[in-house]
C-alpha cells in the first residue's frame, strides 16, 4: 500500500497594483481584499505612496518590481498585476491561478468588462498585427453573452488584470513603467512569448475597468509604446523591414486622417518617432537584457499575429463605410471586424475605387490630354492667383476684366498640391472620385440600396451628360462634378439638433456648392432647384431652405468674375453646348424614368421623380442654346442633367424592390422594365472605360510645344491660332466672315483658355486679319509682329491659312502640323510682346514683363490700360508704353476686384473651417 503523496503547496501570489497618475486606487485595493484566493501581500507600484488613507492603513509602495518583491516575506510564485482603474470579482484571482497552473501558462489575463455597463465586453485579449496594434475582435459595446468564454492563446492582453509567473517577470528585467496602458500589457505579453512563455486569457476571471474609447490605440503615446516594444522584442532582420513599413503606415494613416480634421496627425507621428529616439538608450538596454531576440522567437510572435496592418484595415473599413453606409448615419466601428473584406461597404468601396481607376487610368498613367479646355496649369500658381485677384487677364491681348473663377480655383489647388504637371491629373481623378462618392452618399441618404448607389455614382460621372462635357473637352465641367452631389446630400440630410450642427451642415453644403460653382458658375443654382424639388416631393420645407442657403453661401466664390459681367452676359455668353444623346441612351433613360415614376413606391418613387424633374430641367437648359443660353448656362444644365440621370437610374434600379412581394404583374413588369432600362443606362457609363480618360478626346495641343522649343532668349511670343472651332483651345473669336481665331501666349496654359471682352487691340487685330484674308497684304508678318505674334498655326482649314500660301514674310515650318490640313508659319520679322525703344526684347513673366533696365520706354503689346506701370504710362496706339528704367512692367490692378477675390477666398476658407471644426467636435464627443 502506498502512501498518498502530499498535496502540492498552494501557489503564493503577490498582488501588484500599478498606479497611474491621479488614479484613485481605493477601489482596486478593496476588490483585492475579498478574493477567495488569498494573496500574500499587496504592493502598489508607484512613484510615491498614495495618500488616500491614513498612514497606518496605506499599502506598501515600491517604485520597481524588484523593490516590491523585496518587501514580501518569503518567495511568491505569481504576481497578480492590477491596473489602478480595475476592480475584480472575488473569484478572479482563483480563476487566473487555476488556469496558470493547469495550462502551465506564463501570463494569464482576465476578461475585462465595462465598469459602467457590466454586461458589455471591453477586452478578451486577442492577436495584434506585426506592429503591435491590438485587435480585440469586439464590436463597440458588444454584450457579453459568454461568446468568448474559452481559454485561448493570445498575443495581447489588456493589463487590467494579469497573472505573471514571478520567475518570468524577474527574468525579463521587470516592468517597463515608461509605457502607457495598452503598450504596457503588450510589452509583457510579447516579452513572455519571446522567451517561450505561454500567454492566455481565461474568461472565468472577470474584472471591470472603464472604457477607454476607440481612439486610445491611436494616441501617440500608445504608438510610441508599441514601437518601443517592437524594438525590444523583434530580431534585427524583422526590424529591418518592419520599421520602414511602420513608418509608411503611420504616414499613410495621418495623411488619410488629415482631411477628416485630425490636424494633429503629423505632429503625433513625429512625436512617436522622436520619443523613441529619446528613449533609444533605455530601449537598447532592455533589449540586451532580453534572453533572446531571434528569428525563431519572431516566428513564435507571428503565430499569434494577423497579417498586414490593422490601422490600414480600419482606414479601408472607414472608406467603405463612407461610400457604402455614409459617415453620418452609420458610424464606423471603432474596431475592424474580422471579415471586413466581406462587408458590403468594403465591396462597394472596392468597386467604386475600381470604377474610378478604370475611368481615369490613362490620366493617372499618362496625364491629361491637352484638348478643348483641358490645358496645362500655369507655370506659377502664385502669379496666376495674383492675376486672378484684380490683376491682368492673361487671355488674348489682355484686359483688366476678371478671369473665370475656375482659373482662381485651379491655381489655388495647384498651390496646395505643388506639382504643376500632376496637379491637373490629381484634380481630375479627385473630382471623379468625389463625384462617385458624393452620389453614393446622396443616394444612400435617399434610402436606396447599395447597388443603386454605386450605379448612380457611375452614371453621374460617366453618363452621357458628363461624357458629353468630356467629349467637348470642357474640363471645368468634369471638375464641377466633384461638389454638387455632396451639396445635394447635405440638402437631404436629417436636420441637426443643435446650432453647431446646423452651422456645420450649412457650411458643408455651401462649401460643396462653391466647389462646383468655382468651375461651372451657374451650377450654383442646382442645390436651390434640388431643394425645391425635394421639398415638394418630401413634403418638407427644410430642404428648400438648406438648398437656398447652400446657393447663397457659395455666391461669393463667383467674385470678382460675376461683378465684372452682368447676369445676362453670364447666361448668354460663350458657345453653347447642345447635347444630343443617341437613341440607345435616350430610350432606356426614358423607359427607366417613366416606368419608375409610374409604378415604384416609397423612396425609389421619390428619388425617380426628383431625378426626372432635375434631369428634365437640366436637359432643357442644356439644349437651350437656340433660346439664348450660352456656354455657362448649358454646362450647368448638363451638370443638373447628370445628377437627375443618376437619380432616375437609382430609383429605377430599386423600383422592383419597392413593390413588396404581393403585387400584380401589371405593376411588377414595368418595375422590372425600369430596372433593366436603368441597368442599360448604367452600362453606357462604361463607354469611357476602354480609353480610360473619362471620355476626354485625344491630345490635340501637344504640338503647340513648338512655341517653347523655337522661342528666343526672351521667351515664347504669341501664336495666332485659326481653324475649325472644335480644334482651338478654350474660347475663340470670330472674324466677320465667320473665321475662328484666337491668340495664345507661347506656352499654352489654362488661364488663357478664357478670353476677355474684345478691346481696342482686339479690334485692330481683327481689322488686320480681315485685310489679310482680303488679299490686300503680302507681308502679314510685318503686321502681326506689332501684336507680338511670331507664329500663325492653322489647326485645320481656314481662310487665314489659305492667304499664308501667298505671302512674303512668314516662313512655313515644313513638317510641323498642329491639325489636319493645317500648318505653322513663323514670322521672319522680329516679334516681341514687349520691346524697348532700342529694340531690346523683354520677357513675359505672366502677368508681368521683365527685362533689362534701360533708359527710354518699353512698348507692351497688351490692350491699352492706364494702370500699366511703373512710372508714366502712355498709350501707344492700342498698346501701352511705360518707362524701362525699372526693368519690369506690371499692371497696377483693380482694387475692387482684388478685394472681391480675397473676400471670396476668405469665405471659402471660412466654410472649410466651419466644416472641419464641426468634424473635430464630433470626434471629440466620442468617449475617450
Amino acid at each position, binding site marked *: 500500500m502506498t502512501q498518498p503523496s502530499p498535496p502540492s503547496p498552494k501557489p503564493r501570489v503577490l498582488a501588484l497594483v500599478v498606479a497611474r497618475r491621479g488614479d484613485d486606487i481605493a477601489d482596486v485595493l478593496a476588490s483585492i481584499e475579498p478574493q477567495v484566493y488569498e494573496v500574500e501581500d499587496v504592493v502598489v507600484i508607484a512613484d510615491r505612496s498614495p495618500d488616500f488613507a491614513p498612514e497606518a492603513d496605506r499599502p506598501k509602495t515600491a517604485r520597481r518590481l524588484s523593490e516590491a518583491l523585496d518587501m514580501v516575506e518569503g518567495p511568491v510564485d505569481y504576481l497578480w498585476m492590477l491596473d489602478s482603474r480595475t476592480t475584480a470579482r472575488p473569484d478572479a484571482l482563483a480563476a487566473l491561478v487555476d488556469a496558470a497552473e493547469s495550462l502551465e501558462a506564463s501570463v494569464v489575463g482576465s476578461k475585462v468588462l465595462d465598469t459602467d455597463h457590466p454586461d458589455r465586453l471591453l477586452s478578451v485579449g486577442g492577436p495584434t498585427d506585426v506592429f503591435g496594434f491590438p485587435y480585440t475582435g469586439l464590436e463597440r459595446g458588444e454584450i457579453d453573452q459568454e461568446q468568448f468564454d474559452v481559454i485561448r492563446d493570445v498575443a495581447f492582453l489588456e493589463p487590467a488584470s494579469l497573472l505573471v509567473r514571478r520567475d518570468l517577470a524577474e527574468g525579463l528585467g521587470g516592468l517597463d513603467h515608461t509605457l502607457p496602458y495598452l503598450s504596457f500589457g503588450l510589452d509583457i505579453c510579447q516579452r513572455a512569448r519571446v522567451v517561450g512563455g505561454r500567454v492566455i486569457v481565461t474568461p472565468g476571471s472577470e474584472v471591470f475597468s472603464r472604457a477607454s474609447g476607440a481612439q486610445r490605440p491611436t494616441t501617440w503615446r500608445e504608438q510610441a509604446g508599441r514601437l518601443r516594444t517592437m524594438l525590444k522584442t523583434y530580431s534585427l532582420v524583422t526590424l529591418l523591414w518592419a520599421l520602414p513599413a511602420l513608418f509608411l503606415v503611420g504616414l499613410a494613416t495621418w495623411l488619410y486622417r488629415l482631411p477628416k480634421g485630425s490636424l494633429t496627425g503629423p505632429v503625433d507621428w513625429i512625436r512617436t518617432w522622436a520619443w523613441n529616439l529619446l528613449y533609444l538608450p533605455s530601449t537598447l538596454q532592455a533589449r540586451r537584457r532580453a534572453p533572446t531576440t531571434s528569428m525563431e522567437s519572431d516566428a513564435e510572435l507571428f503565430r499569434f499575429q494577423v497579417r498586414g496592418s490593422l490601422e490600414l484595415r480600419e482606414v479601408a473599413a472607414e472608406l467603405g463605410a463612407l461610400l457604402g453606409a455614409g459617415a453620418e448615419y452609420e458610424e464606423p466601428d471603432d474596431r475592424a471586424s474580422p471579415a471586413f473584406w466581406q462587408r458590403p461597404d468594403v465591396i462597394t468601396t472596392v468597386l467604386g475605387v475600381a470604377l474610378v481607376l478604370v475611368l481615369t487610368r490613362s490620366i493617372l498613367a499618362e496625364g491629361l490630354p491637352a484638348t478643348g479646355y483641358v490645358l496645362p496649369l500655369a507655370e506659377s500658381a502664385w502669379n496666376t492667383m495674383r492675376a486672378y485677384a484684380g490683376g491682368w487677364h492673361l487671355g488674348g491681348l489682355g484686359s483688366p476684366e476678371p478671369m473665370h473663377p475656375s482659373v482662381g480655383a485651379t491655381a489655388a489647388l495647384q498651390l496646395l498640391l505643388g506639382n504643376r504637371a500632376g496637379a491637373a491629373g490629381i484634380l481630375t481623378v479627385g473630382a471623379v472620385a468625389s463625384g462617385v462618392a458624393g452620389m453614393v452618399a446622396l443616394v444612400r441618404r435617399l434610402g436606396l440600396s447599395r447597388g443603386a448607389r454605386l450605379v448612380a455614382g457611375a452614371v453621374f460621372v460617366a453618363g452621357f451628360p458628363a461624357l458629353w462635357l468630356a467629349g467637348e473637352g470642357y474640363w471645368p465641367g468634369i471638375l464641377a462634378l466633384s461638389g454638387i452631389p455632396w451639396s445635394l446630400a447635405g440638402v437631404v440630410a436629417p436636420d441637426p439638433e443643435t446650432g453647431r450642427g446646423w452651422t456645420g451642415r450649412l457650411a458643408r453644403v455651401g462649401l460643396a456648392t462653391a466647389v462646383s460653382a468655382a468651375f461651372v458658375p451657374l451650377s450654383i443654382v442646382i442645390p436651390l432647384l434640388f431643394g425645391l424639388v425635394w421639398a*415638394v416631393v418630401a413634403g418638407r420645407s427644410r430642404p428648400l431652405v438648406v438648398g437656398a442657403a447652400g446657393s447663397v453661401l457659395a455666391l461669393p466664390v463667383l467674385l470678382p468674375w460675376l461683378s465684372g459681367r452682368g447676369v445676362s452676359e453670364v447666361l448668354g455668353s460663350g458657345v453653347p453646348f447642345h447635347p444630343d444623346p443617341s437613341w440607345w441612351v435616350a430610350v432606356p433613360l426614358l423607359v427607366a424614368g417613366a416606368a419608375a415614376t409610374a409604378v415604384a413606391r416609397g423612396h425609389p418613387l421619390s428619388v*425617380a421623380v426628383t431625378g426626372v424633374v432635375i434631369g428634365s430641367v437640366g436637359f432643357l437648359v442644356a439644349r437651350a442654346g437656340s433660346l439664348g443660353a450660352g456656354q455657362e448656362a448649358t454646362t450647368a444644365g448638363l451638370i443638373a442633367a447628370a445628377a437627375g440621370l443618376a437619380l432616375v437610374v437609382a430609383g429605377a434600379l430599386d423600383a422592383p424592390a419597392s413593390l413588396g412581394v404581393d403585387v400584380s404583374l401589371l405593376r411588377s413588369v414595368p418595375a422590372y422594365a425600369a430596372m433593366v432600362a436603368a441597368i442599360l443606362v448604367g452600362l453606357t457609363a462604361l463607354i469611357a472605360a476602354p480609353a480610360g480618360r473619362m471620355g476626354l478626346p485625344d491630345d490635340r495641343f501637344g504640338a503647340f510645344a513648338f512655341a517653347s522649343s523655337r522661342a528666343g532668349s526672351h521667351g515664347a511670343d504669341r501664336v495666332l491660332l485659326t481653324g475649325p472651332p472644335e480644334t482651338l483651345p478654350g474660347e475663340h473669336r470670330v472674324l*466677320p466672315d465667320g473665321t475662328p481665331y484666337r491668340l495664345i501666349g507661347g506656352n499654352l496654359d489654362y488661364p488663357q483658355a478664357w478670353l476677355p471682352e474684345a478691346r481696342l487691340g482686339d479690334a485692330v487685330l481683327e481689322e488686320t486679319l480681315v485685310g489679310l484674308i482680303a488679299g490686300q497684304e*503680302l507681308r502679314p508678318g510685318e503686321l502681326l509682329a506689332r501684336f507680338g505674334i511670331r507664329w500663325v498655326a492653322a489647326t485645320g482649314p481656314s481662310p487665314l491659312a489659305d492667304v499664308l*500660301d501667298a505671302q*512674303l514674310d512668314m516662313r512655313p515650318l515644313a513638317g510641323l502640323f498642329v491639325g489636319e490640313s493645317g500648318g505653322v508659319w513663323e514670322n521672319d520679322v522680329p516679334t516681341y510682346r514687349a520691346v524697348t525703344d532700342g529694340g531690346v526684347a523683354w520677357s513675359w513673366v505672366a502677368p508681368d514683363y521683365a527685362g533689362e533696365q534701360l533708359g527710354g520706354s518699353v512698348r507692351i503689346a497688351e490692350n491699352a490700360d492706364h494702370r500699366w506701370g511703373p512710372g508714366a504710362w502712355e498709350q501707344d496706339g492700342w498698346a501701352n508704353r511705360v518707362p524701362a528704367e525699372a526693368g519690369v512692367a506690371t499692371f497696377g490692378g483693380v482694387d475692387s476686384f482684388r478685394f472681391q477675390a480675397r473676400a471670396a477666398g476668405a469665405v471659402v476658407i471660412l466654410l472649410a473651417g466651419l466644416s472641419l471644426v464641426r468634424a473635430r467636435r464630433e470626434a471629440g464627443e466620442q468617449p475617450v
Partner: protein
Amino acid sequence: MTRILGLVLVALAVVVVAALPAPGPPVPIAEISRSEAPTGGVSHFAHCPWSRSDSLRSSAYSVLGEGPAGFDLSFLEGGSVEDRISGRTDSNTAARVENPRQVGASSALVEFSGNGGAVGVVAAGEGLLAGDLCSGTIPDSWHLPGGSTIEGESLVLRLFNPFTADARVDLWAFSELGIEAGEALEGLTVPARRTRVVALDELLPRRESLSIVVRPVMGSVIPVMVLDTGADSAVWPGSGAGDGWEFPVAGAVGLRSDLVLTNEASIPVNFLVEVFDESGGLLPTQEGRVEGPGQARVSLEGLSSSGFGVRVTGDGPFGAAVVARSETGVAATVGARTTATGWLVPGPGVVSSGSRLRLLNAGVTELTVSYRTLTPQGRTRTNVIGIPANSVRTVHIADPEVAGVRVTSDGPMTVGWLAAAPGRAMFSGAIPIG
C-alpha cells in the same frame, strides 16, 4: 400626385427637349471678298514672272501709282531676294526701272506702300519685243490660252513662286488633240522664292494650238507664257476666268489675230465675239462653243482693215487671250475682264519706235476721254478725245520718256496698247481704277 407630376414632366421634357433646335453656327456678318486678277483693279503688289536683260536685250519696268506711293522692286532668285530697288511715284509721275539685272530672264515682285499701283514690263532687243502687265492678284486657277509648239518655235511656261512656301501645281493642257495627259504635267513643285520654267515645246511638241490652265494644289504661283518664234517673242500673263472679256488691242494692220478661249469647267461655254473698229460700224459677230474642259480658237483675220478690238461674252466663265502674228513678229495679250472709267497704262513710250494707245468704247454712247502721259521727271501732257459708241480709237505715244499713261473717261471703257518694230510686235493691257 408625385407620380402624376413626374410622368407629366417626363412627357413635357421629351416634347420640349426634342423640339429645341441646335444653335446654328455663328452667322457671318460680312463676307470678306478677295481681290481678283487680272482686271480687278490696282493692287498693293504686282508679280512680274518675266523680264529679259542681257547684252543684246533690255527690259524696263514701268511703275504707276494710283496716288502717291512708294514701291520696292525685288528680284527673287535661288530662294532669296537678290536685288531690291525702291522708288516713289505720285499722281504726276511714272517710274521706270531699266535693265536692273542683266542676267537673262528674271522674276520680280513689286510692293507698293501708300497707294496701290500697276506695273508693266517691256523687253526689247535683238529678236525681241514683248511685254505685258504684271499680275496684281492671284486667282484660284490661271488660264493661259494661245500657245503653240510648232516646229521652230519655243513655248515655255514660267511659274513664279515669290512666296515663303513651296507650291505644287497641276497643269491642264488643251491642244488640237484634246486634253493632254502626262505625269510631267502633274504635281509640279515650285520651290519658295524661285521660278520654275516648264518647256512645253519639249513636253508637248508640235501642237498648233496649246493652252494651259495652271491649278495650284498647294501654295500659289504666278505664271506667264513666253512664246519665241525665233524672230520675235510674245509674253502674256495668266488670268482668271471671266464671263466676258474686252480686248482693245485685238488686231492691227499686218497682223493675223486669233482669239483663244479656255474652259476648265466640265460643262461647255457658248460664246459670242463682237468686233469693234474705228469706223464704229456694225461688224459681223461670231458665235462658238468651248467644250468643257477644252479650248477654242477663233480667227479674227479679215474682220477689219484697220486696228480693231473685240468683246467676247459667254454663258460661263472662261479664259481668253489674243495672239497675233505677222511674218516674223508675234504678240499676245490677255483682255480686260471689266470696264472702267479710269485706267493706269504702264509701259507705252518705252519702245523707241513709239506706241499706240488703244481705247475701246463698246457702249452705246459716245465717251469723252482724257489721257495724260506721265514721265519719271513729272512732265505730263493731257489730251482729250471723244470715242463714238461701238468703236475704238488709237492714240500715238511718241515721247520715249513716257513711262505710263493715266486715262479717265465719262463712261465705261477699256484700254490697251501695242507697239511694233521692224519684224516685231507686242500687245499689252492696262489696269482699271475708279
